[in-house]
Every structure is written in structure tokens, then in C-alpha cells.
């Protein structure tokens, strides 16, 4: 009697085996060339459909005389460009400040040296 396997445990074992087998089989499947091809084409298809939907929605919004996504993006791009320029101007200002500090320090050093020699 005790040699008979517990049906629940047996079911669990069969399930685990099936799960492991399925995982391994699907991993083999996705590593095949054909899967790569399907994935590449599917990505393009999804993209094309999404683009159509997005363009259509944008057209509707713009025809309602409301700023659409494209307009908002365009404004955000201008802001980004301005921020780029500002960052570079700030860097230039900081560089000039460093230069000024260095030259002031060297001038002060020279003056100090002069005082020392005149004593």
C-alpha cells in the first residue's frame, strides 16, 4: 500500500515535467531563424498600424484646432535645444570664471612675492 504513489504528488510531478519541457521547447523555438524573421516582420506590422492610428488621431485633433502631439513635441524640441545651448553657455561661463580665478591668483601671488622682496 505504501509503495503506491500519492496521486496528488504524481500529478505535481507530471505538471513540473510538462512545464520544464514546454519552457525548453519554447526557448528552442524562439532561438530559430524562422522565429527571428516572424518577429522582425511582426514588429514592422505593429509599428505601421500604430503609426496609422497615431497619424489619424493627430489629424483629428489638429482639425479641431487643438494642439496635437506633434505640436507639443515640436515645442518640447525647441525647449530641449534651448537647454542644450544654455548648458554650453553655462560651461563657457564656468570656464571663464576658472580662468579669471587662476589669473587673479597668479597676480596676487606675484604681488605677494613683490612685497616680500621689498621688505
Amino acid at each position, binding site marked *: 500500500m505504501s509503495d503506491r504513489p500519492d496521486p496528488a504528488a504524481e500529478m505535481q510531478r507530471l505538471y513540473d515535467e510538462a*512545464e520544464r519541457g514546454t*519552457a525548453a521547447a519554447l526557448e528552442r523555438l*524562439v532561438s530559430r531563424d524562422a522565429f*527571428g524573421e516572424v518577429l522582425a516582420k511582426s*514588429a514592422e506590422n505593429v509599428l*505601421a498600424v500604430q503609426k496609422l492610428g497615431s497619424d489619424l488621431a493627430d489629424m483629428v485633433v489638429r482639425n479641431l484646432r487643438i494642439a496635437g502631439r506633434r505640436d507639443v513635441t515640436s515645442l*518640447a*524640441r525647441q525647449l*530641449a535645444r534651448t537647454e542644450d545651448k544654455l548648458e554650453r553657455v553655462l*560651461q563657457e561661463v564656468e570656464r571663464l570664471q576658472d580662468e579669471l580665478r587662476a589669473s587673479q591668483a597668479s597676480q596676487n601671488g606675484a604681488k605677494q612675492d613683490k612685497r616680500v622682496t621689498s621688505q
Partner: protein
Amino acid sequence: MNRLEQLARAPVAAVDYANIILTQGDAPVGTTPKDVVWTHRKTTLYRYRSTRRTHPLPLLLVFALINRPAIFDLRPGNSFVEFLLDEGYDVFLLDWGVPDEEDADMGLENYVCDELPWGIRETLRASGQEELSLLGWCIGGALVAMYGALEPSGPARNLVLLTTPVDTSGSLYRSWVGRESFDVDYIAEKLPAVPGPGIDVVNKMMKPVQNYWITYRQLWHNVLEGTARREAYQAMASWVADNPPFPSRAYREWITVMYKQNKLPTGRLRLRDRRVDLRNLEQNLLVVTAGADHIAPRDGTLPLLDLASSEDVTHFDRKGGHIGLMAGSRAKQEIWPDIAEWLESRSSA
């Protein structure tokens, strides 16, 4: 718990399970207090607050362009940042933010030649040091390696590269996106910002049963047994589901350079007319690989060890996956202390 007990518990477990899944987005991640040091466009440099900085050299963390850097600071009690702060490091984080369509012009050169060096400059300024350590993870590791190769005598003294893709030949990802029929130019042209969830689906397809079934089945099992670690599951699931868009130019360049042309290990990559040759790497180098990493397979990182000219090169090879290695429950005992120890002897003023 026997079958009858499991059956009796199932209705309560089902409610609990649904609650864990439905509220995972509310899980707090990246909660260690930090201050904004500098921002530029979507990039933000943070400095974590600490009262026990004992190592003079600051450490700048750089994560990938996909997913958010909160993985460095997943949840209280299981946070790499928290660990580093406890170890006395001055920790900074360069967060690429959430790019959108207006950032379509951001290419790899913008990240490697602008954002990263500017973040480094601000880190040095805030810490008052002249050198620092850089720690990059995944794409972040590749960006750090590119920067290190371009600026071998720059302020970066130590480079720590975690599960970093270098040579992609033979990888599954390359067999998908490296093939000619995967038209990355078409994608980048149509999508100014490649949606993060799309990239996430592709990443998860590498191990479909694990990602789409076993994760949830295991959670159900743990809930039923009363052993589910709610906070741990929710924090990780919340982070996994947070996928920022990939700026189209950077996406096109990343796929082309890394997977279609595999330019990084051969030194043929050029950024701003400068050759990115990993043989120029002279910094102290720590490379960490994960044996079960299917996103940046171990074999694809190893060439870096031979390429780098650094005199001080260390390689930690550990069990675990691409993310689990650093963010799993055993990371705190198994890899974080080793990284901290490696940094410690190289972080004096």
C-alpha cells in the same frame, strides 16, 4: 499544507494574489533620500544623503537606457545604494530620465560624450574630488566602457562594469535584431521614441514560459503556502514594468553598432569622429558577469578582459541572471560585499 487545507485556503489566497498583482504599481521603489545635483534635458544627477562618507572617491552609478535606475535602490533592506552608503561611499546616480519624442535626436554620442562627462564633472564638483569611480550596469556598462576608452586619462580611476554586453556574436538578441530583415531604420524613422513596453516584450520573449507563466505560477504557489514575500515581489515587478522609451537615434545606433555590426569589440565604433577602442581602457577595471545571463551573456563580456590595457583587471563570475545577480535576494551576501571590497582599496584620496 495538505491538499484539503490548500483547497480551503484557495479563496483567500485568490483575493490576496489579485491584490498583490493589482497593487504592484504602487510599490515604493528607489526610496533612499537623495538630492538633485544637476539636470540637463531628461538627465538628472542625484547624490544620496549620507552622514557617514568615509571613502573620499565618489561613486557614480550609471544604468541602462531601458528600465529605470531604481533597481540600484530597489526597496529598503534590499538596496545596493543603501548598502554602499552603509559602507561609507559617497554615492551619485546619473538618471537618464524618461525620454520622449522630443528626445529623438539623442544618440549614443550624446550620452557618452555629453551627458556622462557632464554628470562626472558635476559629481566631482559636488564632492570636491578630482577623481571618481564609475559603475555601469547593462547598457550603462557599455556606455561607461565607451567613455573610459575615449578618456583613458580622464577623472575615472575605477570602472565597474556589471553584466555588460561587449561582443554580441552568437547571442539570441543578435539573431533577432541583428538580421537584415529587422529594419531598425524603419522603426527609428517611424517612432521618435521606441516604446519601452515593446522592448520589454522582446526581452521577455527570450524566456517566454519563465516570464509569462512561471513567475505568476510561483507567486500563486507562494501565496497559497503563505510564504509570498509581497514587498519583494511587488518592488521587482513594479521595476520590471517601468519601461521608459528609447530615443530613436540612440536605439538605431545601439542596435546597428552592437548587434548588426558588432563594432565595440573590434574598435570600429566612432563617436564624434573619435574611435572608441576598448584597448585604450587604462582604468582599474572590475568586470562582473552572471552565469545565467541571457540578455548580456557571459561569453559576450569576457573579450573585454583581454581587450582592456588596464594593469588592474578583476573578474567576478557569479551565478544568477542579468538582473537577479545584483538585485536578487542573495546579492546582499554574495556580490555586493565583493564589489565594495574591490572599491575600498581603490577609493582613497
